[in-house]
C-alpha cells in the first residue's frame, strides 16, 4: 500500500471521486472570493454586490466578472502604498518575493508573493514534478539565470522540496552548461523547449551525443509544447519530456503524468473554466476549443478571481487516466486568443506551423512566422532554417514540400524562405517565432 501511495504526491486528493473534487473546489472558491473581496482593492471594487455564500454552481461562478491582464495593470497603479497597488492581498510587510510577468503583451505585471503564497505555489509544483517522476535520486540542472521570472524559481524550490538535488545553471554559456551537466552527472533538466533543442544542437557541435549525457527526464516551461516538438526533444535527449500549463499570474494549473498525453488540471488547487471565445459567458462543450479562465484557490498575497489567461485549449472530454488520477485532463495549449489570427478568412494559430514542421520536417532546426499587410490583403511568411547547409536544389525541394503540407494542414498559402543554418535567432526563455507586422491586425 505504501509503495502504491508513493506513485502520488497526495494519494487522497489525486485519486478522489471527481464529484468530491468539484465540491472541494467550489468550497475553496467561495472561501477565496470572500478573502479577495475583503483584502484586495481590486476585488473590493470588482466583486461589490457579490455574496460569496450565494455561489453554489458553475452557473453562479460565471456571473462573476472576469479579470484580465489589463485589470491587473490598472490595479497595480492603485493607491495602496506599495508598487503592487490594489493587487496586494496582504500587508506589504508580508511580501517576501517579487516576481513579474515577461511583458510579452505589454507592461509587465508585478506579482507579490508572501511566504505562505509562495509555499502554496511550490506545493503545486511538487505535484507537477512528482507526477513527472522526479524523485530524491535525481540531480536536476536548471540551465538559466532565473531573474524575476517565476517558473524556474518554482521548479527549483519544488525540486528541492521533493528531495531532488538542484543545481542552478545561471551565469554560464550553453557550452559551459553542457559541460556542467556532464561533470555533475545531472539526471533531470528544467528548461524551455527551445533551449532544450538548442542545448542539444550545441552539444552535437561539441562532439557530444545529448543522449549520452544521462538526462532521464526533462520538464519544459515557458512556451507551448506541441506533441511533435515534445517527441523530438525526447528522441534527441533519450529522456522523458513533460509539459505543463500555467503562467506567472495564476501559477501552473495543469501538468503531464507518465502517460504524456494531455495534462491533468491541478484540482482542487484551481478552478478552471474553458469558455467560448466569442461569448465568454458560456462554457464550451467537451472537446471544443475555448479560452481558459483560471482561479488559483489558495494564494492570498495576490488574489486572482476568474483570470482570463487568453490561452486556447479544448474542454476536457472526461476525467480519469490510466495513471489512476481522477482530475480532468486538457490537451496541450493550442495558442493564445491574441495570436488567433484570421488570415484571408481562415482561423489560424502559429502553433499549427510548429506542429507541422516538428512532425514532418526533422531537417528544420528553426523557423519564424511573419504576417504583413500588402494593400488590403494579409500575407503570411515563413522562414525555415535547416540544421545543415543545403544546395539550392535541396532548398527548393524542402520549400516546396513545406508549402504543400502547410497548405494542406492550415488552408493557407505561405511565402516560404529557406535561410542558412544559424541565421535565425535562438531563445533561452520565451521564444518569439511569431511576428505580426500589420499596423492594425484587427
Amino acid at each position, binding site marked *: 500500500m505504501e509503495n502504491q501511495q508513493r506513485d502520488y504526491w497526495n494519494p487522497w486528493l489525486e485519486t*478522489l*471521486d*471527481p464529484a468530491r473534487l468539484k465540491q472541494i473546489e467550489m*468550497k475553496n472558491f467561495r472561501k477565496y472570493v470572500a478573502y479577495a473581496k475583503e483584502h484586495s482593492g481590486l476585488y473590493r471594487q470588482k466583486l461589490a454586490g457579490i455574496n460569496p455564500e450565494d455561489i453554489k454552481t458553475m452557473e453562479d461562478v460565471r456571473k462573476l466578472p472576469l479579470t484580465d491582464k489589463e485589470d491587473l495593470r490598472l490595479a497595480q497603479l492603485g493607491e495602496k502604498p506599495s508598487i503592487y497597488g490594489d493587487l496586494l492581498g496582504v500587508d506589504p510587510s508580508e511580501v517576501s518575493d517579487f516576481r513579474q510577468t515577461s511583458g510579452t503583451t505589454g507592461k509587465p505585471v508585478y506579482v507579490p508573493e508572501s*511566504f*505562505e503564497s509562495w*509555499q*502554496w505555489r511550490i*506545493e503545486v509544483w511538487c505535484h507537477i514534478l512528482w507526477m513527472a517522476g522526479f524523485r530524491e535520486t535525481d540531480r536536476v540542472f536548471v540551465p538559466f539565470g532565473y531573474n524575476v521570472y517565476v517558473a524556474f524559481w518554482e521548479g527549483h524550490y519544488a525540486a528541492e522540496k521533493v528531495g531532488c538535488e538542484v543545481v542552478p545553471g545561471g551565469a554560464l554559456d550553453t557550452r559551459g552548461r553542457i559541460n556542467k551537466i556532464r561533470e555533475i552527472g545531472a539526471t533531470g533538466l528544467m528548461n524551455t523547449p527551445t533551449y532544450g533543442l538548442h542545448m542539444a544542437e550545441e552539444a552535437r557541435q561539441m562532439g557530444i551525443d545529448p543522449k549520452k549525457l544521462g538526462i532521464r527526464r526533462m520538464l519544459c516551461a515557458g512556451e507551448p509544447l506541441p506533441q511533435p516538438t515534445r517527441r523530438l526533444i525526447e528522441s534527441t535527449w533519450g529522456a522523458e519530456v513533460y509539459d505543463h500549463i500555467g503562467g506567472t499570474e495564476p501559477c501552473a494549473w495543469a501538468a503531464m503524468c507518465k502517460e504524456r498525453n494531455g495534462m491533468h488540471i491541478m484540482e482542487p488547487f484551481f478552478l478552471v473554466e474553458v469558455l467560448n471565445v466569442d461569448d465568454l459567458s458560456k462554457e464550451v462543450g467537451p472537446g471544443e476549443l475555448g479560452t481558459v479562465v483560471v482561479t488559483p484557490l489558495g494564494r492570498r498575497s495576490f488574489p486572482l478571481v476568474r483570470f482570463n489567461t487568453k490561452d486556447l485549449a479544448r474542454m476536457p472530454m472526461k476525467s480519469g487516466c490510466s495513471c489512476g488520477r*481522477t482530475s480532468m485532463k486538457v490537451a496541450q495549449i493550442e495558442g493564445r486568443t491574441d495570436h488567433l489570427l484570421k488570415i484571408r478568412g481562415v482561423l489560424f494559430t502559429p502553433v499549427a506551423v510548429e506542429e507541422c514542421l516538428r512532425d514532418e520536417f526533422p531537417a528544420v532546426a528553426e523557423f519564424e512566422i511573419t504576417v504583413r499587410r500588402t494593400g488590403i490583403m494579409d500575407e503570411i511568411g515563413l522562414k525555415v532554417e535547416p540544421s545543415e547547409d543545403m544546395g539550392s536544389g535541396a532548398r527548393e525541394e524542402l520549400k516546396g514540400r513545406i508549402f504543400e503540407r502547410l497548405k494542406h494542414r492550415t488552408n493557407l498559402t505561405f511565402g516560404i524562405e529557406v535561410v542558412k543554418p544559424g541565421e535565425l535567432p535562438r531563445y533561452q526563455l520565451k521564444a518569439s517565432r511569431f511576428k505580426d507586422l500589420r499596423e492594425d491586425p484587427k
Partner: protein
Amino acid sequence: MKHLDAAELDRLKAMSLKIKEAEKAVMELKELGKGVPVVEKNVRSILSVTYVLKFGISDLAEMEALD
C-alpha cells in the same frame, strides 16, 4: 476513481487533528517568542507549511467528515 474507505478516512481525520495541534503549538510558540526574530521568522515558515497541509489534507478530511 476512489471513495475513501473508513480506515483511510480515520487516517485523514487523525492527520487533520495533528495539523491543527501543530498549528496551535506553533501559535503558542509565537506568543512566547514575541518580538524575537529567531522565533517569529521561523514560526512564519512553519505556518506557511501548515497552510499547505491544511489545503491538501484537512480540507478533504473536513469535507469527508460532513457526510
